[in-house]
């Protein structure tokens, strides 16, 4: 009895001290994350006296409002197109036999793990003027002149969709796995045809997965940099790309900082919606404590 209480108090003492274990990571995050981010904030507001001129300039210049709009537009469109490509995969995954399911899962996971640069580069090879699609169509005599499918909105949409599909498939698939397929059988028994069963039963039950995947992808899309830079033309440059140009080419750090803060705030607004309806735990892979 005494031994047990002694060991209990020992563990309590240790657990009280466990906070110390988190301290190194917290210090690292303060120094290497919070501090650098706040220096961006300061840079955008003080030069050297307090000023809002960079923010006012951003919202007053039509070019920048347009880029903000293009950023949202490309993000919404690529999220939708990733949903259109990803949803059928998730639907089939839920119903396929183990062999095909494993093959599909392997293909998606592999695509997910390949270097981002390699994935973007592979689309350059496929879509460019003398690329795979144009060579094949040209050889078949289906086109006279090469199609212009790279360095425009089409190229960016293809590249971003390709990257986002796995992020869409996994949350939808995991939600679908929790849905009892007998519900569909019941709907059918009550006289619904396949189409009605899908729209009235299967689809509404998969909405939480769609919401989680779409918001996650939308948050990623807002800050996307690599794909618009490599596969887009001048008109498809997003906010991230303009920030990079301001830093590297124009050396205008205060204005780049103001744009960064605007991008960060836009992202945080979308994220707060995600957090409110789905919870931060989902980002951790759905592990609820």
């Amino acid at each position, binding site marked *: 009895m005494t031994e047990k209480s002694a060991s209990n108090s020992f563990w309590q003492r240790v*657990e009280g001290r466990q906070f110390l274990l988190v301290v190194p990571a917290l210090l690292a995050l303060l120094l290497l994350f919070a501090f650098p981010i706040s220096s961006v904030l300061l840079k955008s507001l003080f030069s050297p006296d307090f000023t809002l001129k960079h923010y006012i300039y951003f919202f007053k210049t039509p070019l920048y409002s347009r880029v903000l709009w293009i950023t949202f537009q490309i993000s919404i469109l690529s999220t939708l197109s990733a949903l259109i490509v990803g949803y059928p995969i998730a639907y089939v995954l839920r119903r396929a036999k183990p062999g095909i399911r494993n093959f599909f899962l392997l293909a998606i996971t592999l695509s997910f793990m390949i270097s981002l640069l390699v994935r973007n580069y*592979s689309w350059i090879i496929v879509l460019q003027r003398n690329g795979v699609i144009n060579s094949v169509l040209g050889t078949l005599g289906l086109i006279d002149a090469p199609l212009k499918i790279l360095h425009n909105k089409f190229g960016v949409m293809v590249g971003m969709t390709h990257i986002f599909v796995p992020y869409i498939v996994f949350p939808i698939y995991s939600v679908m796995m929790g849905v009892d397929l007998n519900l569909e059988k019941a709907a059918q028994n009550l006289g619904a045809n396949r189409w009605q069963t899908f729209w009235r039963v299967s689809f509404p039950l998969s909405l939480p997965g769609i919401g989680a995947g779409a918001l996650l992808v939308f948050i990623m899309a807002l800050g996307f940099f690599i794909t618009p830079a490599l596969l887009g033309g001048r008109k498809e440059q997003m906010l991230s790309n303009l920030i990079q140009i301001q830093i590297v080419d124009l050396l205008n750090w205060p204005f780049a900082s103001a744009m960064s803060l605007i991008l960060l705030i836009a992202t945080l607004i979308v994220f707060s919606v995600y957090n409110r309806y789905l919870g931060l735990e989902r980002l951790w892979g759905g592990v609820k404590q």
Partner: protein
Amino acid sequence: MSRRSRKKAARFDPLHIGWPLWLVSGSAIFFLIAPVLLLIPMSLGSAEIIEFPPSKIGLDQYHKFFNHPAWQRAVLNSLQVSAMTAVVSTFLGLLASLGLVRGKFRGKGLINAFIVSPMIVPIIVLGLAFYISLAKLGLLGTKLGLVLAYTPLTLPFSVLPISATLRGFDRSLEHAARILGANRFQTFAKVTFPIIRPGVLTGAIFAFMIAFDEVVIALFICGTTAVTLPKKMWDVIRYEIEPMLPAISTLLFLLAIIILVLVGFLQQRITRRMTTS
């Protein structure tokens, strides 16, 4: 219910997938994997230009890549930076996970949110933030600068698998070790760590992969003195036509396969340990 509809209902199988759905989902999978697979035959072309289909077949591009000093240096830089990042991030992540999963103190939710927050900040914002801060410290163009920048970026990805493994951990094993006379550090080294090792390794692999593939922050910090593989690839993709690129991409594709097998293997060990303990 009429006989016909009853027959129809009996025939209904929720697992049935019609051919249009097979076509759509099959095309989607093709879309995901075909462009990357295409790089493999392209990498075997020996010509000075990238052509499809390649006219002369050979391993020239691979040979050139492995014997090119600038690319060798880039690969070496990337390996060093990613390995250092993985070590630092896994060490911090292991300690933090132990504290967060087992500790009882206030503000755990807040700390958890703080640790994942680098995932949400747009990468270009992090790039600018590190550019400004590391410039002040004179660390631009150094590998140390890259490791410092990649530490917060990879921390959530090492904390995630480690704390997941810890949550499934049966603590009576530790109590048993303590009762049998082991001290706290012996218990950790001989009981706790061996059991959570697959999760720790998974975290380290994730951190390594993220650092190894990172290009946006690298664009700001590498300069000309600490060029990493992704930074060099970026420059080449943007500004030149480089016939070696499909070969390099194929090698990175092979790396992804190796990592996939490795992580799958570790995952299996984690689930096996969870079920036996």
